[in-house]
Each structure stands twice: as C-alpha cells, then as structure tokens.
C-alpha cells in the first residue's frame, strides 16, 4: 500500500461518507462552530452535558475534506460518555493516534479542526459554569 492509500483507508472513508453522531441538536448545553480559514473546513459541535459534567450526547455537523470529517466523526465517538474534565486536555497526539494515518504538515489543520472545536466548546462550558 502506498502512502496515499494508507491515508485514505477504508475506515477513514467510511467515517467521511457516514459520519457518526451526525446532525444537529436542538437543546444542546454547548453549541460551537469552528472554521478553518485557510481551507474553509467547518464544524458544528453540539454537546449535551449533565450536572456531573458528563457528555451524555454529542452531535457533529462537519463540512470539509475527508480528513476533517473523519476526525470529527471519530472524536464524537471518543468523547461520548466521558466527562468534560477527561476530554478538555486532549492532545494533538491523541487525535493523530485516533486517526491512525499519516498526516502531512499541511493537512494537520484539517485533522485538528475537531480538537479545536472540542477545546473551545469545553472553554465555553466552563466559563458558563462559573457564572
């Protein structure tokens, strides 16, 4: 398998074509929209968070390339059922490991849009909790 086939392996393309937890949420605790200005990839993330700061439901609505959509889809699976504290410090490395494919430096932004969206969602949530 060459690099490109490794990158666009079936798993990634499945997530791209049928993203998990796809859609929008009416009464989300936090809804955050993030855009990658360089390439125009966009992601809407909706989190339903209970009183124990647990993410009980998540919806993602990505538009963009296979890498950014697959990353959003996989991350939505990853964080569902976890607490905000568990996910707020997730790292770039964890995302890359989750994707499990070689990502060139120029595509890093695509891969990490989901993480940026998640981080900003958790920040918004914590700011709101403090009030």
């Amino acid at each position, binding site marked *: 398998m060459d690099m490109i086939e490794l990158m*666009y392996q079936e798993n990634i*393309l499945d997530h791209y074509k049928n993203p998990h937890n796809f859609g929008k949420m009416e009464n989300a605790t936090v809804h955050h929209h993030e855009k990658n200005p*360089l*390439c*125009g*990839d*966009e992601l809407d993330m909706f989190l339903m968070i209970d009183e124990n700061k647990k993410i009980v439901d998540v919806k993602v609505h990505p538009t*963009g*390339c296979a*890498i950014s959509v697959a990353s959003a889809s996989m991350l939505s699976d990853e964080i569902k059922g976890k607490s905000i504290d568990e996910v707020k410090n997730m790292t770039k490395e964890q995302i890359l490991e989750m994707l499990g494919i070689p990502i060139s430096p120029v595509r890093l932004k695509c891969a990490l849009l989901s993480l940026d969206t998640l981080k900003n969602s958790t920040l918004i949530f914590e700011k709101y909790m403090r009030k």
Partner: protein
Amino acid sequence: MLKTKTIMDVETIRKDFPILQRKVHGKPLVYFDNAATSQKPKEVIDALDFYYNNYNANVHRSIHQLGEEATAAYEKAREKIAEFINAQYEEVIFTKNSTEGLNLLAYSLTSGLKQGDEIVISQLEHHSNFVPWQQMAKHLGLKLKFIEINENAELDEESIKKNITKKTKIVSIGHISNAIGTINPVEDIARITHENGALMIVDGSQAAPHIPLDMKKIDSDFYVFTGHKMLGPTGVGVVYGKKELLEASRPFLYGGEMINEVKFDDTTFNKLPWKFEAGTPNIAEGIGLGVAVDYLTKVGMQNILNRDRELLDYAMEKIKEIDGITVYGPKERASILSFNVKGVHAHDVSQILDSEGVAIRAGHHCCMPLMSVLGISATARASFYLYNTEQEVDTFINAIHKVKKIFGV
C-alpha cells in the same frame, strides 16, 4: 510527446526550467499550480546569484563601482518592464507584490475622498483587490459596490453600467479571475469609468503572465501585477500608473529614497518613480524580474497566449469525458481550470493528485466572496503555463481517475 501546433517549442522551453526535472513521490513533477506562482527559468535564478556574487550594493546612494552597477541593472529592469507593457519608464513603480501595489493605491487614491463617495469592484476579486477597498470604505465612510457576475460567471454588462455612475471615484477590477479564469473586458470598463469621471485600476496579476499587455490600449489609470507569477522571483511587483496621476497622488510609504529634501518641518518628495519607492528595494528580485520579462518577450506573449488556449482546450476536452466533474467559469477563459469531483472535497483531490506528482491548488483561492456567490466552499484548480504539455494533462486526468477509484465515486 505530442507535437504542438504553435511555433513555440515546449521541449526546448522545459530545458530552461531546472525544477521540471525533479521527481515528487517518485513521479515526474507535473506543475499545474501556475496561478499561485510560476516556476523560474535558469536565467532568472542565475541573475539573482550573479548579482549577489558580483555586484551586490545598495541602489541610488552608493558612489562606487558596485553601487553604480547595481543601480544601472535595477533601473534597466524597470526600463524593460515599461517596454513590456508599453508604458513610460517613470510610470513603473516597483513594489513587493500585487497586494502591496493594491494597498498603495487604496491608501493613496482614497486620501482625497469624501464620505459617501463610491468605489466599485466585482464579485470576482481576489482578497488583495477586495479587503483593502472594503477596509478603506469602512474607515472613511465610502460606499463599496460590487459588479455582479451572470450565469456564465462573467461580469454582467447591466451590472457594470448600473454600478459605475457619476458618484463613482474609483473602479478596481481584476483582468483575469485567478479562481475561475474569467477574462474581464477591462478596456470597456475603463471607458465607462472615464465617462463617469472616475479612476480605473486593473489587477493584472493573472494577466501579465499570459497575455500581451499594452497600457495605451487598455487605458486604465493604474495596472498592478506581481513578478513571481510571470517567471520572476518573489518579492517584486509593479504598479503602473499614468504619469500625471502618479505625480498628483500622495506617496504611500515614507522614508529614505522617496525624498528630495527633508527639513525639520517638512519634506519634499523625490520625482517619479522613486516617490513611491521608500527604503531599500528588493534589488536582486527587481533585476530578476527584468530577466523574466526578457524571457517572456523572447518566447513571445502572443505565442504564450495561443499555447495556453491549445493546452486548455485539450484539458477541457479530457476532463469533460469524466463522470461527476463540475467545471466552474465561463467558456472563454484563461488557462485556469477550476473544478470539483462529485463526492470528494477539493483538498482530497489535491492530496491524491500530489501522490501522482501533480501539483494543483485546492481551496477558496483567496476569493471567499466569489465562492459564496457560486455556492461552494472550495474548488480544485489546475492552472497551466508555457512549459506544460499534453502528456502532463494526461497524467493529471489519470490522477483524477485515481481519486475517483479511492473514493469509490
């Protein structure tokens, strides 16, 4: 290798571009990202090298042999560029790139405007010919209007007439759209602009590399282009301006070089073109652009234009045979092929093409307003130049088939 019908010998030209020998991911490089930046012939690369190795010195100020050689070469480049666009020597101002040129004009030309005065651009503009006007309008209370495109992605004639009126002070239009290749009727727009007593600027970033230019014929008041897209180095661009207008305009950058006499209470400015060139310029790059212009002239701009058409027609025919391809832009276009593959994002198209050695661009092409008019967020764009071949187009087409295979579309 297919024989070309033009009198240009592409194989000979290719030998002048060392980078075309390199391999990418083990495959021969197919460089179709010329609208972003062109490759450079060896002559241009050597000119930079030769300058630094032999006569590096500051221009216009150093009274010694090296300084004189550097100044002569730098000013000779200006002369060649003036000839290339049929303008006078004083009308050629060196900038860093088109973006700086358009900002220079946006700052200089709006300084006398009043609240409510109107500036007209179009929906096709590159952010460089969009954001400066938008921001000047915002700060000075000017009104920014947009000429709309019709269903063929050409500037709508009615919209041109409707937007350019007696209230208009400045019209700034791209000659060729970098996103979809539309060639705009800048001569007609210049005439309409002048009938209304306004100033006409043309962003010629995509035109200067591809079509013969004659400033007298276009008759715009200003014309802006960037060296790196026309075989020249990065870091050098040009603002052409009609002499009397440049003389009447305020400088944009202040500092050394652009002055005549500086006293504690005021400064008089240098004569044209140096009035607009503050500070030490990109000397080697300016000289390099002169060499690039020599190269283009040697090949012949009309030959380049004919060859562009030939290659574009070939690519269009081939790409249309593929299912699920949408091509954006008008039928009559410059050598820019903007497209999408159904079910695949442009980034992924670009990434997979890269694995076959094919370099294209994917994204909004610095034209986000246009993308929103077209109702898309990105396209894949192949853009051709004088060293590209039909064989390379075939490689590109095969690579699109690979995209479709990987994505199962």
